[in-house]
C-alpha cells in the first residue's frame, strides 16, 4: 500500500481518533436531547434535562478546544494521491466548517441561555459568566440561531459520514479506516 511511504503522516493519532469519536457521540446525544426536551411539559425532569444538555454542550466545547489544540500540533494524514482536486477541497472545506460549527453551536446555546435569563452553572458547580443581559427578543433570536446552526451541522455531518462510507464501499480506500482502524481493507500493519 502506498501509505507506507508517508510513515509519520499516514495515520491519525490515537488522540485524534479518540477525540473525533468522543465528540461525535457526545454531539449526537446532546443533539437528540436538544430536540427532545423543549416539548416536554414543565417538570423537575425537564429542568434536569435542560441542565444536562447545557453541561454536555459546555463540556463538548472544551473538548473541541482540546481537539483543535491537538490538531495544530498534529497535521492530518494526506488524502490519497489519486483523489480529484475538487473532492480534496470539498473534504477539507467540510472539515473546517464542522470545526467552526462545533464552536458556534455551543456558543450560541450559551448566549441564548444568558439572554433568556438562565445562567449556565456547569455541573451545578461552576457558574459561567452571563455574556448577555436578559432580553426576551434576543433570547428568541438566539434560539433560532442555535437551531439553525445545529441543523446545518447535522446536515453537514450526514454528508461527511456519507462521503466516508462512499470512500470505504465504493472507492475502497482506507479513508474510513483512518478513523476506524479496525476497518482497514488490507491486513497491513502500520
Amino acid at each position, binding site marked *: 500500500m502506498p501509505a507506507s511511504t508517508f510513515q509519520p503522516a499516514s495515520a491519525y493519532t490515537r488522540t485524534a481518533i479518540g477525540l473525533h469519536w468522543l465528540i461525535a457521540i457526545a454531539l449526537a446525544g446532546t443533539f437528540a436531547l436538544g430536540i427532545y426536551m423543549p416539548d416536554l411539559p*414543565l*417538570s*423537575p425532569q425537564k*429542568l*434536569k434535562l*435542560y*441542565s444536562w444538555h447545557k453541561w454536555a454542550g459546555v463540556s463538548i466545547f472544551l473538548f473541541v478546544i482540546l481537539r483543535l489544540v491537538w490538531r495544530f500540533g498534529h497535521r492530518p494524514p494526506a488524502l490519497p494521491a489519486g483523489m480529484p482536486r475538487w473532492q480534496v477541497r470539498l473534504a477539507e472545506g467540510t472539515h473546517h466548517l464542522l470545526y467552526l460549527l462545533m464552536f458556534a453551536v455551543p456558543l450560541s446555546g450559551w448566549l441564548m441561555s444568558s439572554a*433568556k*435569563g*438562565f*445562567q*449556565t*452553572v456547569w455541573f*451545578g*458547580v461552576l457558574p459561567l459568566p452571563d455574556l448577555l443581559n*436578559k432580553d426576551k427578543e434576543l433570547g428568541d433570536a438566539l434560539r433560532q440561531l442555535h437551531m439553525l446552526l445545529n441543523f446545518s451541522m447535522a446536515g453537514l455531518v450526514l454528508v461527511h459520514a456519507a462521503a466516508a462510507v462512499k470512500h470505504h464501499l465504493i472507492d475502497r480506500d482506507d479513508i474510513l479506516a483512518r478513523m476506524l482502524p479496525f476497518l482497514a481493507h488490507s491486513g497491513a500493519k502500520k
Partner: protein
Amino acid sequence: MKSNLTLSCLALIASLLHAPAAQAVEFKQFQAAKSSLSFVYKQMNVPVDGQFKNFRARIAFDPAKPTAAKAEFEIDLASIDAGSKDANDEVAGKAWFDTKQFPVAKFVASSVKPLGNNRYEVAGKMSIKGKTQDLATPVTVSQQGDGASFDGSLVLKRADYAIGDGVWADFGTVANEIQIKFHLVATSK
C-alpha cells in the same frame, strides 16, 4: 388653639431654616410605584430572578415611636414574574401558589424591635396558600425628605407553605430557600 399656633410657627421657622425636621412625622402613604418586591430562587443551582408586580402595604411608622409601628402587606400572587412564561404559568397552578384558590399572600406585623442604626426587627405572621407561619426580618429604614424607605431581605422556605408540592416537593431541582428582597417606600404626606 394657642399652642397649635405656636407649633405651626415653630415648624414654619424650622423649615425656613432648613433645620432637620425634629417634629413627629409618620410615614404612612405607601408608594407602590417606588416600591419593589423581588426574589431569587435556585433551580439546578442556577439562580433565577423574579418579582411580584402588584402588592400593597399599609405602613404607619413614626421614627420617634418605632415600637408602635404598624405594617401590613398584601401580594397579588398572580402578578408574579418567575423568570419565564413557562415558569409563570407553572407557579400559578395547584402545586405552587394555587392562585385561583389563594390569590393573595399576606403579612401582618405584630412587633417592631429597634436594633440600632436605623435597623429594626419586624416580626409577624405570614400567610400564603392557607398556611400561616411566624416570620421575622430585619428592616433598614432610611429617610429622605418626606419619604422613608424600608429595605430588607429574608429567606423564606417554600416548603413551610407547601409552595411547590407533589413532583416539586424534592429540593433537588428547585431549592427550598427563596431569597426575598423588598424595598418599600412610604411618605408622610
